[in-house]
C-alpha cells in the first residue's frame, strides 16, 4: 500500500453485506480547521470493580475453555500513554456463542461465562483482562461464513477524536482469509495490528496463555479551540 493509505476500513465495503444499506453514499465532509478537542469528564466518580477485568470470576464456577490473559498499553500516536481510559470488552464463549438473546447459533451457553469485562488503564496506559479464548462462530454474510476468534474492544478516552471500537484477533487463525470484516482494513500491515502476539513472558506456567496487544488511537493532532482567522 502506498504511504498515506487509510488505516480504518471504508464503510462502503460490499464483501460485508450489512454495509449495503448502511454506508453513507455522500463523501465525508472535512471540518474546516480543527475546532476543539472535546473533553468530557466522563469517568468522574465512577468506580470499576476489582474483578471487572476478570471474565473467569464473575460466576460461582469457572467458565469452560482455554484460560488466557490479554494485556497491553493504550497509546496515542505520539506514544503517550492514555491513562484512565475506559476499556470495555465483549466476546463469545469457548463454544462460539454470545450470552445475548439474539445469538441463535446452536452452540451451548456457559452458565459461568457472561463474556463482558471492563477496566481503566493505569498511569502507563496499561490494561489487563483475564478471560477464556472465544470460539469461532458461523454467520450469514456469505455461504459457510465463519468469524475468526475475536474479542470486541471499546476504548473510551476523554477526547472525542480518540474514540475507537475495534476487534482483537489471535495469531495464525485459518479463518482470516475468508473474513470480510478483518479484510476490510485496506492495508495488510494495519490489518496485522489487530492481531495479538502470543507472549511466553505473559504466559503463566501451568495456568494460562498470555497475549499482548497494544492499541494506538489517533486524534492527538487536534489543538485546543482557537480562532484561526486573521487577528
Amino acid at each position, binding site marked *: 500500500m502506498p504511504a498515506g493509505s487509510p*488505516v*480504518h*476500513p471504508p*464503510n462502503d465495503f460490499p464483501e*460485508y*453485506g450489512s*454495509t*449495503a*444499506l*448502511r*454506508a453513507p453514499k*455522500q463523501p*465525508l*465532509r*472535512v*471540518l*474546516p*480547521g480543527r*475546532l*476543539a478537542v*472535546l473533553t*468530557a*469528564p*466522563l*469517568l468522574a466518580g465512577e468506580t470499576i470493580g476489582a474483578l*471487572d477485568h476478570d471474565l473467569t470470576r464473575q460466576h460461582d464456577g469457572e467458565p469452560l475453555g482455554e484460560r488466557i490473559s490479554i494485556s497491553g498499553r493504550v*497509546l496515542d*500516536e*505520539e*506514544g503517550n500513554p492514555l491513562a484512565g481510559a*475506559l476499556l*470495555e470488552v*465483549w466476546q463469545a464463549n469457548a463454544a462460539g456463542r*454470545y*450470552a*445475548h438473546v*439474539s*445469538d441463535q447459533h446452536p452452540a451451548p451457553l456457559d452458565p459461568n461465562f457472561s*463474556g*463482558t469485562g471492563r477496566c481503566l488503564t493505569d498511569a502507563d496506559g496499561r490494561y489487563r483482562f483475564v478471560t477464556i479464548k472465544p470460539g469461532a462462530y458461523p454467520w450469514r454474510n456469505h455461504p459457510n461464513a465463519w468469524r475468526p476468534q475475536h474479542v*470486541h474492544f*471499546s476504548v*473510551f478516552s476523554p477526547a*472525542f*477524536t480518540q*474514540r*475507537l*471500537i475495534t*476487534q482483537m484477533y489471535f495469531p495464525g487463525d485459518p479463518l482470516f482469509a475468508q473474513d470480510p*470484516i*478483518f479484510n476490510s*482494513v485496506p492495508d495488510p500491515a*494495519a490489518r496485522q*495490528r*489487530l492481531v495479538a502476539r502470543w507472549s511466553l513472558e505473559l504466559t503463566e506456567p501451568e495456568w494460562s496463555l498470555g497475549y499482548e496487544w497494544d492499541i*494506538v*488511537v*489517533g486524534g492527538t493532532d487536534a489543538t485546543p479551540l*482557537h*480562532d484561526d482567522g486573521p487577528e
Partner: protein
Amino acid sequence: MTLPLTPSQTVGPLFAIGLSTTIGSHVVDEGAPGALRISGQVLDGAGEPVPDALIETWQAEGAGRCATDDQGHFAIVTIKPVGNAGAGEAPHLDVSVFARGVLTRLVTRVYFPDEADANGADRVLRTLTPDERSTLIATPDHGGIRFDIHLQGERETVFFDR
C-alpha cells in the same frame, strides 16, 4: 515518534452485552436545570429502522450513549452546550454512530433549532447547502428535540471526517 494507528472494526450486532453502565443515556438527570431530551430514529438506505446502532453524544459537560431499540429509536438526556460565537461555532453536540454494517464510526453533529442566528454564523453549517444543513439541525419535539439519523438515502445525514 509517530505510531501507526489501530484500525477500527464494526461494533457488531451484539454489543449491548458489553456496554457497562459507566456511560449511559443520562448526561444529567431529567429534572436538572436545562435538562433536554434528544430523541431520534436511525434509518438505513431503505428507510428501515436500524435496531442495532449505538449513538454517543460528546460535549464538555459529559458523554452520553444509547443503543437503539427494535424500532431504531434512541434518547439521550443532556443540556445544551454553550457555543463560541467568536470562533464561529454554534452550540452543538458531537455524535458518533456505530452499528452492525458500519466498519468505522460515523461522526455527525446535532445543532439546536432555537439558535437560528448562531447556526447562520456557524462555520461548519455555512459550508453546507440548505438541504444538507437541515440534516444537522434538530427539530422541536414535545419540549425536547428530535434528531433522526439517515445513514443513506435522499435525506442522508451529513457525516464528517473524524
